[in-house]
């Protein structure tokens, strides 16, 4: 198993504590494409953030490829995010000043890869997501779907162990959404990319291997 989640809890402290996640347990196999579904406030995004090391759980364990993520220091977490994880967010989350190519090679640059190699890798990755013609375009010169594909290329350029996608199609029209989801499916099939995606579109389940339904911070059904 590539991810093992044990008794994961997330509580937001306050006058009335909010129990966002209550004792979550599940596992993910290598090469699986999993969708986290549920209504707004069900805790699906919160769960994704805990798995993706973007947030710190209140209790429980996440073991990824044999490493207990809870035991990592801040610095190790940064390194782990950089080397092992990729993210695609709801709004495209591209830096407005960077062209498609620059956006994609940013993670490589952060991992001290030489310039020649990172440009080559980033170019290949953009070709793979079908943006060979858009290398030097700024985000504002691209459509929403194209921007999201840049974000996917950026997420994958470091060959992450796991790709996290947080409602990647929420801001896209039906056509663009289809392109993105098909791209995910292809990546999953071709290179065996493990993907965990949060979505609220019930239709999306036809693209994935398995759906985990959440309700009020707990797994309702798998």
């Amino acid at each position, binding site marked *: 198993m590539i991810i093992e989640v044990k008794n994961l809890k997330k509580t937001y402290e306050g006058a009335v504590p909010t129990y966002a996640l209550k004792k979550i347990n599940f596992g993910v196999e290598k090469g699986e494409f999993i969708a986290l579904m549920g209504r707004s406030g069900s805790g699906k995004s919160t769960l994704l*953030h805990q798995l*993706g090391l*973007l*947030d710190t759980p209140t209790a429980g364990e996440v073991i990824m490829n044999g490493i207990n993520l809870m035991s990592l220091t*801040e*610095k190790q977490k*940064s*390194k782990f*995010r*950089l*080397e092992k*994880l990729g*993210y695609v*967010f709801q709004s495209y*989350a591209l*830096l*407005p*000043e*960077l062209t498609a190519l620059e956006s994609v090679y*940013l*993670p490589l*640059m*952060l*991992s*001290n890869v030489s310039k020649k190699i990172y440009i080559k890798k980033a170019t290949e990755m953009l070709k793979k997501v079908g943006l060979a013609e858009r290398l030097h375009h700024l985000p504002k010169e691209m459509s929403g779907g194209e921007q999201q594909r840049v974000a996917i290329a*950026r997420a994958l350029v*470091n060959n992450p162990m796991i790709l996290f996608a947080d409602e990647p199609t929420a801001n896209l029209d039906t056509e663009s959404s289809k392109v993105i989801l098909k791209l995910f499916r292809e990546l999953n099939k071709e290179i065996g990319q493990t993907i965990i995606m949060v979505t609220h579109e019930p239709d999306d389940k036809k693209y994935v291997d398995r759906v985990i339904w959440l309700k009020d911070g707990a797994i309702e059904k798998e």
Partner: protein
Amino acid sequence: MDFFENFFSAWKILSASKLRSFLTMLGIIIGVMSVIIVMSVGAGAQSLILNQLKSMGSDLVAVMPGASEDDGPPPSMMGIVMTSLKYEDGEEILKQAGDHVSELAMYVNGNDIVTYGANKTSTNFVGTTASYIEVENTTVKTGRFFTEDEERSSAKVVVLGSEVVDNLFGDQDPVGRRIKIKKVSFTIIGTMKERGISGFQNQDDQVFVPLKTAQKLLLGIDHISLIRAKLVSPDNVDKSLERIKEILRDKHDLDRGDKNDFTARSMSQGLDVISSITDALKFFLVAISAIALVVGGFGIMNIMLANVQERTREIGLRKALGAKTKDISNQFLIESVVITFVGGIIGIIIGILISVLVAKIAQGLGYKWDLVITFSSILLGCGVSIGIGLIFGIIPARRASKLNPIEALRYE
């Protein structure tokens, strides 16, 4: 991420919002610019004054009324009227120190309107002795200077500086005509050669009358404001100075413990005093420019803090992508250093241009102005601007790097 990549990306981000970056830089530009200008203009003005004083000769000794510290300015230089120096003092020096002093001139000054018919001009009148021409090492252009006899008899004769001639007579020859100063009518006997500006005084915008005439008819005083003595040998300045002091103490009946009621200085001592005054002025001006720089620094900190706020999402994104805390703080630090450094360079360039302009204008006006731009002032400008970028960039950079990735990403 190495320094150049950081630098390049900072440059890119800054040039994406040009106006904001420029406004942020403005404080630094103005600060560095004024440091350069003040240092250059200050040094230029200082060299101008000192050169002019030097050109008056190292064999001159000046005696002014009133006591002063050894290295401080005499009271008359600060506008205080002292009456302790008299015509007889000059005569006494000439009589007793003949082996030290070759020529000696005495001076009183005033300022009034000079009229010729309907033409008027406001000018300085100098009451002086006939020896003025020799002591000041100058000559007349037309006519003649007044004689010792005219001086002794308080003759109503006047010699005009070249600018006064231009103002009152234009192209006409003034010699032989009459002008009025304070309702007293004077006969013009000569005009002076052009001499330009020396010290703080335009030498051409003056008229010269016999000392006693000025004392009695124009000023109503019996003291003099300056004695200038030309020494026989410039090598014995200190000895000659001591002799002159001795004579005056004796003449003024000062006892052993009494302080001098006059100030006698050689030109080189005078130069030291003036340099110390101009140095203090320069330091003061540089200090004011430094304040401008610090204010600019706070401006940068303010904008960088707002910048962190505005780019919270970007910071979250970078962190989510795996940027380390150090990467983020470096990014912001380098951005503020780039802003201040570029601002510093622009400030240096503008500062140099303005300094050159000032020098050209001063030279155009006939001053012997040296263009002084020291390497140290440029280094200071660069160093201070980068230093400010670092110091005032640290707080915003630290704040940015401490953000929690998911909270930063959620920030709208």
